[in-house]
């Protein structure tokens, strides 16, 4: 959980090295033409997107604090008699604790290996008879794993900064991250990954990916994107609700204009607010979408969704059917309630 520091640093360094990339995130159509990948990080970080994603995760505290199956030893529960106020205080404290559990892993571009060369001293060639590379690490307390100075002197005399891959390994030597393995865990290999997808163990693999990789690691991005695609296919969004992974999932779907299944599922479960939020997210990310003409003003849920269905969606039939079903059931419910009350 690297938090905002990495993200800010990443943005700064990216800005320094790839000016074009940072600018191309919303209105510029040059992004499409230039062939450079659009950077999702700044959009992801923006307050509007963050608030939408937080609301979309639909936090249910009970599910956040569920017993994880891979717990080792169980203990007996402890009981307390509490008044209303005490329960309220305890619950607020739990909400604060849940903030850490619900911290979303940032969506970044894959890092590029381009280590800076600091010096070239060909005179040092042949210094070491074994031809080994020397790595010098700054292990001062307080330096972050991302920032600390790690340089290597290669056998041909070049002094350069280490690659990202090497940086991960060196940090693991001096400051091991608990749960991180040296070699790629078998779970991420295609054979076992597919099996996990079949078993619908999404939270399991996403948690492991968060532990094993940094968010800008190409393997992390690959794994998470594959998982999100599988979830989208199987429409099992409920598995990620109330976890930290729902935000990035929704963001990924909106980024790739694939929110149809999500909207459909929300309509079927009568989560109209969530359906609206998903469409709003799409509008923020893709300012050039057709359905942006109708704005959500707090009351026109069905109108807003219908507009999206008729313009931008690729599953018009299914969505309109779902809208109809929802409206009918809402009507029936109203009638029953009025009969009951009278």
């Amino acid at each position, binding site marked *: 959980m690297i938090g905002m520091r990495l993200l800010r640093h990443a943005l700064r360094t990216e800005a320094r090295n790839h000016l074009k990339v940072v600018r191309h995130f919303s209105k510029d159509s040059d992004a499409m033409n230039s062939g450079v990948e659009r950077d999702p990080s700044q959009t992801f970080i923006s307050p509007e997107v963050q608030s939408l994603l937080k609301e979309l995760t639909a936090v249910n*505290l*009970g599910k*956040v*604090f*569920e*017993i*994880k199956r891979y*717990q080792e030893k*169980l*203990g*007996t*529960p*402890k*009981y*307390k*008699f*509490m*008044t*209303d*106020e005490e*329960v309220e205080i*305890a*619950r607020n404290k*739990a909400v604060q*604790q849940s903030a850490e*559990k619900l911290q979303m892993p940032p969506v970044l571009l894959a890092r590029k290996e381009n280590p800076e060369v600091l010096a070239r001293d060909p005179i040092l060639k042949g210094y070491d008879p074994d031809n080994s590379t020397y790595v010098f690490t700054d292990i001062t307390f307080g330096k972050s794993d991302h920032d600390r100075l790690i340089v290597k002197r290669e056998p041909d005399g070049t002094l350069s900064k280490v690659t990202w891959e090497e940086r991960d390994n060196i940090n693991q030597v001096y400051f091991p991250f608990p749960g991180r393995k040296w*070699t790629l865990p078998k779970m991420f290999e295609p054979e076992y990954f597919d099996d996990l997808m079949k078993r619908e163990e999404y939270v399991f693999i996403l948690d492991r990916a968060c532990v094993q990789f940094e968010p800008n690691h190409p393997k992390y991005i690959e794994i998470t994107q594959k998982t999100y695609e599988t979830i989208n296919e199987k429409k099992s969004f409920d598995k990620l609700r109330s976890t930290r992974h729902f935000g990035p999932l929704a963001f990924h779907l909106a980024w790739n204009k694939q929110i149809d299944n999500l909207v459909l599922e929300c309509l079927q479960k009568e989560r109209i607010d969530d359906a609206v939020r998903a469409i709003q997210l799409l509008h923020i990310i893709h300012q050039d979408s057709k359905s942006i003409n109708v704005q959500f003003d707090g009351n026109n849920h069905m109108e807003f969704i219908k507009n999206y269905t008729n313009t931008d969606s690729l599953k018009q039939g299914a969505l309109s059917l779902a809208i109809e079903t929802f409206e009918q059931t809402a009507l029936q419910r109203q009638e029953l309630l009025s009969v009951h009350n009278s």
Partner: protein
Amino acid sequence: MALPLLRLLSNVPNTINALKALSPGAGALLFKSPAIRATLIFEPQCRHTSFFNKLPAQDLWKGVTSVSNAGRKRGRGKGTGKKTAKNLNRGQIIGVGKSNIMWPGLSAPILKGKDLVKQQQLPEDSERMSKLIKMRDEMSTFRYLKLLPIERGWSGTKLPGRSIGPPDPIGDDTFEGFDTKVLEFKSVFHMKGNFGRRRRMSCLAVTGNGKGLAGFALAKSVDGRSALKRAKNRAGQKLMYFELYNNHTVMHDFFAQFGRTKIFASQKPEGFGLVCHRAIKTICEVIGITDLYAKVEGSTNLQNIVKAFFIGLLKQKNHQQMAEEKGLHLVEFRRECGNYPKVVASPAKCRSKEEIKPNEVLDFSQYVMDGRVVLKKKTFPKFYTKLPGWERHLKKTLWCRNHDDVKMRMLVEHGEIRSFLTDKYPEAKPKTWKKIREEPQPEE
């Protein structure tokens, strides 16, 4: 036993006859000589008929195996100590005997092809007698029941701890899913004015369906089987329902007492098992409790333990009942859930802080144990940690303290245990330290 004696008796007159045959005049001499008269058994009483030949086998056996009235009162002559009559005709066929003679028409065919078979004596079978004796010796041993380990009770082939099936159905009630287990099976005596000491079998059985319904009963009868049946059926009549926490353990810790028997029971998590007295274990099995710790203190009278445990279970309170009684929310905290406050029961109207008296017991464990506090005995360090060699041992084993984890990791990642030398020399495979290691025999 009678057979060798007969043989001995028969031998003596034979020696006298043999002596007489050797020298006809010797017989008179023999009798007149005082030395010989002293050594020979003087005209032994050789009877060729006795009760042995006159009485039928049944009466003979009755004389050997019967038990007196006094003995019967003491319970002799029944069960394992009973002497059984042996059928000596077993293993013997009419026509086959000690002198192996072939009897055509009886033990052999009359015609063999076209020739008549003659009655002839075949060579004696020396092993016949020993075979018969061996068979007769084995006849008396009691054939022990073959019990599968899963069917065994608390000890050996004894009944306590063993299952005796569900209670007998009454009309439409078929007691489906019920299983009865015996807790106590013993012979008890009582004195009657006219009969004196009378023996009966007493059986304490507990029955349950593994889902919270259970009942126990005591029944006595003259014979064991009917006592078991009575106890089983009576237990089926006296069923009680107990609510379980998550279907695996008791609702909360409790203390219960019956007579001088005290039980301290604690709720335990899944996978803990039943760590308690075997009787309590059996009762939990039939109720459906799979995890429990129970400490029995004071008297360990089995019937009292059973009664105390049932009393404790009956006095248990539901979460909702506790919340109503206290007028406060009952909140569950679990370490595995990050100590999230889960409200399991709420009263109809919750009291406020002002309404709670200052000296009221709000602590859940105190409330549940009725004010009692379980004594937690001090655990002292093991004796060997104080010995001088302990420090040496710790220093010696420090270098390989993570070897088990490393071994596991290597097997997962590489499939074998290797070191930096194994890269260069594949045969250099490190092995975990063993005090005595068997050297593999060199294959030739």
